């Protein structure tokens, strides 16, 4: 899932200005991480209106990253959209740009910062699990990804800086190499770590389009 967090409300007020705004949320990731579901979109509407910023309408797209679906869903909001000067999107960086593609005469404003691709670990807790590097290596490491979960992306870790299983740069981060080692040891597969992993092919992360 794409994990986002809302930008500071005061920054959004500044970006929107005093003119009418239309709000867009997303039914998928932004709903699940409570940045752009119906609840958050309505809360944003209230907060903006309290600041006397007119909200001309709102919608939660299903999902915001689907270009043609968006065009279809937004048809019934034509009038409300027409009254707005800008569109505030509470979805990931992809959602914002898909909306932008539809409107070239309105300011499309991102209401969130996109943080990472991660899991819902438990309620209100999200952890990074993937860097979208284009060539998945988790099979080499017992199902763990050191590319995204080790700050140095070490393929031949650990670096030696972890203490008590916690990363040297962030006490909230479990050392993924500690996890890999313990897991493989328990499974009797430590021999998998004997091989020196070759430098990664980062060119795989340069893909920008996939066509079926």
């Amino acid at each position: 899932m794409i994990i986002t967090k809302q930008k500071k409300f005061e920054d959004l007020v500044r970006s929107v200005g005093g003119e009418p705004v239309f709000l867009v949320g997303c039914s998928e990731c932004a709903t699940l991480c409570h940045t752009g579901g119906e609840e958050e979109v309505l809360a944003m509407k209230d907060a903006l209106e309290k600041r006397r910023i007119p909200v001309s309408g709102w919608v939660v797209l299903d999902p915001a990253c689907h270009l043609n679906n968006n065009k279809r869903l937004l048809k019934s909001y034509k009038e409300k959209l027409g009254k707005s000067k800008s569109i505030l999107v509470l979805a990931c960086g992809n959602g914002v740009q898909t909306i932008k593609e539809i409107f070239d005469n309105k300011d499309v404003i991102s209401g969130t910062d996109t943080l990472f691709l991660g899991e819902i670990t438990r309620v209100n807790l999200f952890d990074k699990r993937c860097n979208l590097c284009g060539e998945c290596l988790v099979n080499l490491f017992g199902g763990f990804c050191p590319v995204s979960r080790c700050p140095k992306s070490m393929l031949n870790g650990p670096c030696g800086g972890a203490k008590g299983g916690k990363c040297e740069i962030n006490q909230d981060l479990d050392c993924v190499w500690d996890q890999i080692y313990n897991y493989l040891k328990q499974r009797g597969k430590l021999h998998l770590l004997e091989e020196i992993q070759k430098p990664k092919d980062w060119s795989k992360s340069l893909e920008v389009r996939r066509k079926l």
Partner: protein
Amino acid sequence: MKSKSNLEKVLLNGNFAVTAEIGPPKGSDPNSIMKKAKMLNGYADAFNITDNQTAVVRMSSFAGCSILLKMNMEPIMQMTCRDRNRIALQSDILGASALGIKNILFLTGDHQSFGNHPSAKGVFDIDSLQLIQIAKNMRDNGMFQNGEEITSGRPDVLIGAAANPFANPFEVRIDRLSKKITAGADFIQTQSVYNLEIFTKWIDDVRANGFDKKVHILAGVTPLKSVNMTNRMKFHVPGVDIPDTIYKRIKNARDPKKEGYSIALETLLELKNINGIHGVHITALFWEDIIPSLVKEASIHTTP
């Protein structure tokens, strides 16, 4: 003077400056650079040593510059943002200055996918404009990028930048040059000039904006050595503009090498008389031995 650079002295005296490029070897043998340097000594005011150009691994620019210094020649170190982050770049600016390097050309760098290690991870922590700004701030205000003070010795280097008069779209070229001047560029080395018509339009715009008074502009000249090289430059190297007239001249020539030399000489003679140009930068990749006769025939190197 901002630096103790000989190049800066030449430029400030209003003399027509000549810089020449020396490509370092794909190996550790210093003789290859020394040989080229000896041949070119006296034919240019300063010598660029490239930084893993086109993302192909070669001896570092830093080491090449250090070899030139030992030969009492003035190097222009090249520095790209592809392989180093802001920590390494700032550290190398300090180190270069400590060793006596007085000119640095700052570039973003060719993408690694063009080179011989396409699977490498590109760093691109910062871009050339940011790096120019950082270098200027280090030199003039004694400050690192993070705002911390430089405690023992500011790097007094002359700051170089690149400009491409042929990039698309046209409007962007002048805006970007303007930004590089604002960021702190002292001299500009341009992309190789083959299309004099477009280049003249660009330099007209440069003059109209008064930029030729704010920065020293050295026009790039790269002699075409063969039909193969011309093909590659025309169709595969991004940002190069070889007009059809030049292309045909090389293609139809009985001796393409000789024709390439003539074109380069004609270009140098034209550039010499363009108002707003303060010098030329000659890049003769793996053909450095023609530079002395080009410089002599064009009689462009006036400063001893």
